[in-house]
């Protein structure tokens, strides 16, 4: 097994792991965004809240989420460690520098650190509270299956593990934690919306370099595909953060 350690502790090996975790996190962004888009529904959060329940209890999703958390930590740790080593590779800096590279590509460490801080804030607000808080609000939905009419009522004081979803006499009753309400309340605060929009701009810059850089590190550079990867990476790095940022802005104004 010696060679495995040698391989992944070499500079190229650490880069490979950074690229693999980074690209995996890109796929996570897509899944996370698709879920979040349900916040645009005007259904008082029925779709979003049942989705949140599914994502936190499904065994397959829970298994993948372990991979996700370790990828975030691994990507951050490797990135910071490489940034530190790279800094040490030039102990005396130049008096004058005229860069011929793109700004984002030179500042991946700073951008990544800002994203990490954002993730900490983001998770301690929604993820941690959803999982652990005792007084978390609940909502009861009654959906008339024939007419599609939905009536809701807020519930509180329920045990944090409660989830109800059944159909009786043509009425679907759902009682779920009201994460939708949490989002709504959070994004009524302007500074919070601004924090999210800025963080998504930071993410956009990080992705604009990171996406195509990941493929290069994997050795996937080819006359036929590299221009397509770069183009797709640019579109990806603009569209995904834009869609994420649109959610708090939409909630603030509605």
């Amino acid at each position, binding site marked *: 097994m010696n060679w495995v350690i040698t*391989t992944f502790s070499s500079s190229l090996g650490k880069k490979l792991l950074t690229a693999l975790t980074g690209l995996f996190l890109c796929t996570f962004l897509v899944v996370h965004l698709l879920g979040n888009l349900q916040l645009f529904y005007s259904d008082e959060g029925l779709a979003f809240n049942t989705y949140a329940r599914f994502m936190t209890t499904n065994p397959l999703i829970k298994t993948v989420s372990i991979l996700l958390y370790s990828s975030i930590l691994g990507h951050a740790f490797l990135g910071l460690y490489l940034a530190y080593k*790279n800094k040490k*590779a030039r102990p005396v800096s130049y008096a004058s520098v005229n860069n011929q590279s793109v700004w984002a*590509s030179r500042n991946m460490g700073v951008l990544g650190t800002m994203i990490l801080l954002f993730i900490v804030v983001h998770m301690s607000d929604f993820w941690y509270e959803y999982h652990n808080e005792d007084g978390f609000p609940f909502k009861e939905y009654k959906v008339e299956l024939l007419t599609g009419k939905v009536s809701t009522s807020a519930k509180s004081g329920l045990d944090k593990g409660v989830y109800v979803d059944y159909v009786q006499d043509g009425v679907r009753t759902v009682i779920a934690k009201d994460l939708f309400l949490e989002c709504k309340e959070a994004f009524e605060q302007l500074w919070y919306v601004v924090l999210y929009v800025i963080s998504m701009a930071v993410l956009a810059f990080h992705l604009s370099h990171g996406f195509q850089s990941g493929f290069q*590190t994997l*050795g996937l*550079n080819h006359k036929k595909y590299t221009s397509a990867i770069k183009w797709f990476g640019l579109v990806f790095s603009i569209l995904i953060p834009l869609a994420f940022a649109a959610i708090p802005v939409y909630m603030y104004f509605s």
Partner: protein
Amino acid sequence: MSGTMNLTLKVWRQKNKNDKGAFATYQVKDISPDMSFLEMFDVLNEQLISKGETPIAFDHDCREGICGMCSMYINGRPHGPLKGVTTCQLHMRSFHDGDTIVVEPWRAQAFPVIKDLVVDRSSFDRIIASGGFVSVNTGNTKDANNILIGKEDADEAFSAAACIGCGACVAACKNASAMLFVSAKISQLAMLPQGDPERKRRAENMVETMDEEGFGSCTNTGACSAECPKEISLEHIARMNREYFGAKFTSQNVK
């Protein structure tokens, strides 16, 4: 003289490896725009010698842009402002009368300054010695057509072999990474049948030595390729990554 230039030079002066070093400012007068940058330095050094001062030490050899000896980080860019050109092929017509030019040595942990603008690039030699060669049978010269090589492969190998090992890639990289250099040397031999017998060992050993020498790692900024006087492409770095992992996962070397 008409059409000549007067310039202010801020040059890094450092007595030896252990000296702290500092910038010194010099004035040069009546510089012809047709002089090369190094010839302008020759003029400055003549001035210094006639004043009894120590001339500025700088590396140079062929002055034809092919040996890779000259270095100099000029106004924030290795080999100065032009694309695909070494310092010796940079001419004073690229500057304007009255300009202030800042000249620094390559800056990298693995390239310690020996004196003034001269850095020790023997870390590159050690990387080459660890695998950048082919073991050939001695004896009569073989017929060139014995081994058939596709034109495209030959061209690609040649584009990598154009690397003169000057170290501008390391100087330009914000991480002082040597990956463009190492990848060119690995690529050049990986594309050719002559390089095949030692292909895996070469990739493993050269990357290992590169890490040991204290170069940074690549963050794909592309600054190296943009500043390379031989315009070595980033494709070679991708190929090095493939070569290295291909070797690591399939070679007989278990260490």
